[in-house]
């Protein structure tokens, strides 16, 4: 009896307060909080939370509630259920998250059917944004770094030949395609392509690297998922003496992910990467961002490109909430984001109104030792890079 | 004279360097009550395994009623009428006694492949299984799981399964081993009650049982036939006494 009364009272209270109080916007977050992606989920999650914490003023008078849901694995099926339930049970206004491309691909029909804005904060397979009109990406496409790197390798690093090693899943193949396309367009030659196992488990890279070493290329372009794969790549590169053999290890910034870089130590020195973010970028917004991060999560921790994907994604969501005054309509939200500009820790970014993908700077960096730690020194910069895959309508990026 | 029920010719089987069966020439006539004795490791169980097709001979032949069955698969030999019991119980431990016998009867009458009718609908199979249990005085335990039965009762189920196959040749590998003496008469009675035309080969160490049962005895030593004869001849054979009977004594 009493329980009923309390419930009724609470309901009544909720009604009246919601009237008086701030409009609540529910954001459903689909991330792999357990399993092999747990580490990445934590980075994106912290990036989002940090933006909300640092920009509490910008959120007002609205209230953003994050409803977090574990998608467990890169398999797709669990992500799909999670997104479906976020939409039908929790009635979220906006969706966010996606570490793994297969999860974003599996979720696409649900996102389309649910008609809610969905902000991709990491998954990098180029054509994903074509799969649902409600996808907007604040992270990157594999083509951003891969395409830029192909050109830079030939022009800036004077490479004539390259071997590409990649993890055998869509982002890896994307990365290979992007690098090859631009590298060969400016006269380089990819002399070997080595699929190096799946994304599910870190393989022993020694046989693959031995093969690459035997081919004696000028550069060895490697794409592997950030994290443990990347750490193993750098270790193997050093241990096999490839640097002494005159082969430069290059790749997108996944291989020098900030969270792994210091543990790689001296082995990482000399790596040359193309990426849109690393924690050493000398940009005022980034200085503040890194400082706030270390204050919030501990001096031993560092943000990285995944964290920035979450941070910028939340900035985009807050922008939408403000523009629409807390009443989220997916089509209006898309309008609000098309052409949106933001001063991100990675430099100026915007959302391409045509592709709903991000436009940003790419930085060519070299890892050097500085003050006893590995430091990423920017040695080149390309402004306003778009996803070349969709720009040039290559393969599945051409759309339907 | 017609061909014997079961016959082996120069049967050999080697396990690596070990000759478990050496040049065995053996005949089991229709209606025979034949015993196979010999010290441990003489190759008696291997011989049964050769006869039933569990083990393939290295050389030599096995004939049933004159037909060469050396290459015939185990299941086919059962269909031809060769059944056995095992030295150590090999039963369906988590099934009931009735189900144990049901499985064997169902195989014999060809009911087992039936997939779309409930097992209980085959009343004939259930009836026959129950009757068999009745004759072995097992019907009181019909609903119990094998794993709940004392070992001696399990031995009887071993026998029941073999009988359910209505064999022409019955190979009994130490049927009374582990059975309390108070119950062993049930097994002996059951063997005595078998149709006369079945050929029975019994392996046992229990000389009382062997001499009570057998009309003919074969002695095996080190994988080879050492002697064959009537119980009286075997009992009188000095060499047999020397290598076997004298050493182990009775029981």
């Amino acid at each position, binding site marked *: 009896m009493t329980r009923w009364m309390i419930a009724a009272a609470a309901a009544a209270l909720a009604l009246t307060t919601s009237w008086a109080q701030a409009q609540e916007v529910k954001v459903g977050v689909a991330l792999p909080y*357990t*399993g*092999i992606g*747990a*580490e990445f989920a*934590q980075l994106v999650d912290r990036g989002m939370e940090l933006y909300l914490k640092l920009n509490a003023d910008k959120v007002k008078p609205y209230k953003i509630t994050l409803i977090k849901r574990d998608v467990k694995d890169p398999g797709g099926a669990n992500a799909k259920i999670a997104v479906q339930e976020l939409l039908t049970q929790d009635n979220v206004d906006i969706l966010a998250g996606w570490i793994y491309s297969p999860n974003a691909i599996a979720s696409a029909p649900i996102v389309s059917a649910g008609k809610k804005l969905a902000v991709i904060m990491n998954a990098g397979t180029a054509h994903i944004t074509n799969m649902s009109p409600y996808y907007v990406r604040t992270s990157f496409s594999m083509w951003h770094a891969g395409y830029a790197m192909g050109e830079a390798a030939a022009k800036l690093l004077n490479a004539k030949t390259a071997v590409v090693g990649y993890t*055998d899943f869509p982002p890896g193949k994307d990365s290979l395609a992007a690098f090859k396309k631009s590298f060969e367009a400016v006269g380089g030659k990819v002399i070997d392509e*080595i*699929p*190096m*196992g*799946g994304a*599910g*488990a*870190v*393989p*022993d890279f*020694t*046989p*693959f690297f*031995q*093969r690459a070493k*035997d081919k004696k290329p000028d550069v060895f372009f490697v794409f592997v998922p950030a*994290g*443990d794969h990347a*750490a*193993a790549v750098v*270790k193997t590169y*050093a*241990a*096999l*003496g490839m640097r*002494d053999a005159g082969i430069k290890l290059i790749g997108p910034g996944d291989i020098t992910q900030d*969270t*792994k870089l210091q*543990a790689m*130590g001296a*082995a990482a020195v000399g790596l040359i990467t193309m990426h849109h973010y690393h924690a050493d970028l000398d940009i005022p917004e980034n200085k503040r961002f890194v400082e706030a991060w270390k204050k919030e999560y501990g001096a031993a921790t560092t943000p990285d490109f995944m964290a920035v994907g979450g941070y910028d994604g939340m900035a985009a969501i807050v922008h939408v909430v403000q523009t629409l005054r807390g009443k989220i309509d997916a089509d209006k939200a898309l309008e609000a984001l098309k052409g949106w500009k933001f001063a991100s820790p990675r430099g100026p970014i915007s959302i391409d109104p045509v592709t709903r993908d991000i436009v940003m700077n790419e930085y060519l960096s070299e890892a050097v030792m500085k003050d006893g730690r590995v430091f990423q020194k920017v040695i080149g910069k390309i402004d306003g890079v778009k996803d070349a895959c969709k720009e040039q309508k290559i393969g599945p990026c051409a759309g339907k | 004279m017609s061909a014997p029920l079961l016959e082996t010719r120069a049967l050999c089987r080697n396990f690596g360097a070990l000759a478990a069966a050496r040049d065995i020439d053996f005949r089991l006539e229709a209606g025979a009550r034949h015993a196979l004795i010999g010290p441990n490791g003489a190759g008696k169980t291997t011989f049964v395994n050769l006869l039933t097709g569990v083990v393939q001979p290295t050389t030599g032949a096995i004939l049933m009623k004159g037909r060469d069955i050396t290459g015939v698969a185990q299941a086919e030999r059962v269909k031809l009428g060769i059944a056995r019991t095992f030295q150590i119980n090999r039963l369906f431990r988590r099934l009931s006694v009735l189900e144990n016998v049901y499985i064997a009867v169902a195989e014999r009458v060809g009911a087992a492949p039936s997939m779309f009718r409930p097992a209980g609908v085959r009343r004939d199979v259930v009836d026959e299984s129950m009757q068999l249990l009745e004759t072995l005085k097992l019907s009181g335990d019909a609903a119990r799981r094998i794993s709940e039965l004392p070992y001696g009762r399990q031995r009887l189920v071993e026998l029941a399964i073999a009988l359910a196959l209505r064999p022409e040749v019955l190979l009994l590998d130490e049927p009374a081993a582990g059975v309390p003496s108070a119950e062993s008469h049930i097994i002996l009675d059951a063997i005595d009650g078998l149709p006369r035309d079945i050929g029975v080969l019994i392996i046992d160490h229990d000389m009382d049982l062997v001499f009570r049962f057998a009309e003919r005895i074969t002695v095996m030593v080190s994988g080879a036939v050492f002697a064959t004869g009537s119980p009286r001849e075997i009992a009188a054979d000095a060499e047999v006494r020397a290598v076997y009977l004298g050493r182990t004594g009775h029981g």
Partner: protein
Amino acid sequence: MIAGVDIASMLLGGVAAGMVLFIVSVGLSVTMGLMGFVNLAHGGFAMLGGYAIALAMKHWGFGFVSALVFGFVVTAAASAVLERLLYARLYGADELDQVLFTIGLVFMIIASVTLLIGPENQPLALPSFLRGQINLGIIQYRAYSVVLIAIGIVIVGALWLGFERTRLGAQIRAAVDNRRMAESLGINIARLFTITFAFGSGMAALGGGLGAEFLGLDPQYALKYLVYFLIVVAVGGLGRVTGVFYAALLIGVLDFALKKYVPQGGTAFIYALTILLLLWRPQGLFGAKAT
């Protein structure tokens, strides 16, 4: 154009990988052969041991070698406690109950490590003399691989001596072949199980630490390499130390060679190879023939 140097580098890399497989798997093989226990938590012990070694070096000032000893001892002791308290209850139980129990245990180990330490990879920094290259005359090669091969040879030698020349080893061999007989000879089976289990887990811990350079070290380690360990055990034959050794080397070298020369096939080769080997020799290459 496969030169001698290529073959040498392939063999060195493959044998080194095989050594890691061997060191982790040998305990699994012996526990499965001896106790008939399907211990899917074995990879969990390897992971725990690896963590103990990594943390000892990072936070408690251990050197590499003393950390390895520390990891071995800690893991062996912890597993002995688990064996007495929990595993022993399931000896002789349905193997599916054993599977359920050990999978549950792996989940708990993974979740606990994730909660207490975090989901990320634990870097295990090798001492400087083990990094870089070493000159072997005909070939420059990764120093650590060479050292690992040496360690592996020492371990297999010691294990072989232990199995063949000590009383305990003889007891274990007897119990693997015929447990009932061993029991009737007055061997204390329960004690033997505990010692073997603890030792096998300790070996797994060593493997976790020594192999971290190749396989990394994170909570998922407990499951993601389990299939490889099981393949080695199945191919080598249950309870056979030398069998596991040869199987690990075989799998290690073939896996390495196939990945190097035909990377397009992905991991398919190793599975195909295992299928063929097991169809050819169902009891494993060195297992006892079924009777």
